[in-house]
């Protein structure tokens, strides 16, 4: 019974927190129709469950769609001054999710964990091989502590 209560409360807390996550006009739980209105006129490529949107506020956005709702997204941007953007995002995310549970300012990596969700922030010059980008997103599939620490 205790175990069940824990699972229910955990799922509920994830649900509440996940709904808070947003980036400019895109937020978890928004409908696909609203998403397409938000990015109207921007280039996008779509599969049955993922949409990549280009040029969204100087970033590209990879959105997962589940049952016509946004279930997951990551923002990737290539900025002239990555350091300033990193610091700005650390401040913005700290205000919302508390102190980062992992922060390496030299490697530009941070991880926020709250109520069972992970929000990772990083400038990644390694895994893509040639593309420098800043990744920022709530993700169930892609990011984990292991990704952030080892990638």
């Amino acid at each position: 019974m205790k175990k069940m209560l824990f699972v229910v409360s955990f799922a509920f807390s994830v649900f509440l927190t996940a709904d808070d996550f947003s980036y400019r006009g895109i937020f978890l739980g928004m409908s696909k129709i609203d998403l397409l209105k938000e990015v109207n006129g921007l280039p996008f490529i779509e599969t049955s469950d993922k949409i990549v949107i280009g040029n969204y506020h100087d970033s590209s956005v990879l959105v997962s769609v589940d049952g016509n709702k946004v279930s997951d997204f990551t923002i990737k941007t290539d900025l002239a001054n990555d350091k300033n953007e990193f610091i700005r995002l650390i401040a913005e995310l700290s205000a919302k999710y508390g102190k980062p549970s992992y922060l390496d300012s030299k490697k530009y990596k941070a991880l926020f964990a709250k109520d069972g969700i992970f929000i990772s922030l990083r400038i990644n010059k390694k895994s893509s091989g040639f593309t420098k980008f800043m990744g920022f997103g709530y993700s169930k599939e892609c990011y984990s502590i292991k990704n952030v620490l080892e990638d």
Partner: protein
Amino acid sequence: MESDNKTVISVCMGSSCFSRGNNESIELIKKYISDYNLSGKVILKGNLCHGNCSLGPNMSIGDDMYQGILPENIYDIMNSAFSSEVKE
């Protein structure tokens, strides 16, 4: 991998694979599906990075993994995977 008896084509949409050719490959796969009336038999999905960037661009068709794919190879890959479905 099959979903509702449809063969799943899963294309990596992580930034590395995507910018190295999968952005174009997705459009070519869609065109192939349309040209050969495969929409009832396949489902095109995207996947996030699985950490195989150095071997990419990556995609899978059913249980078969394809690595280092280029847009110019898509037609041949699709032909070999769906040869029994496609009649030229």
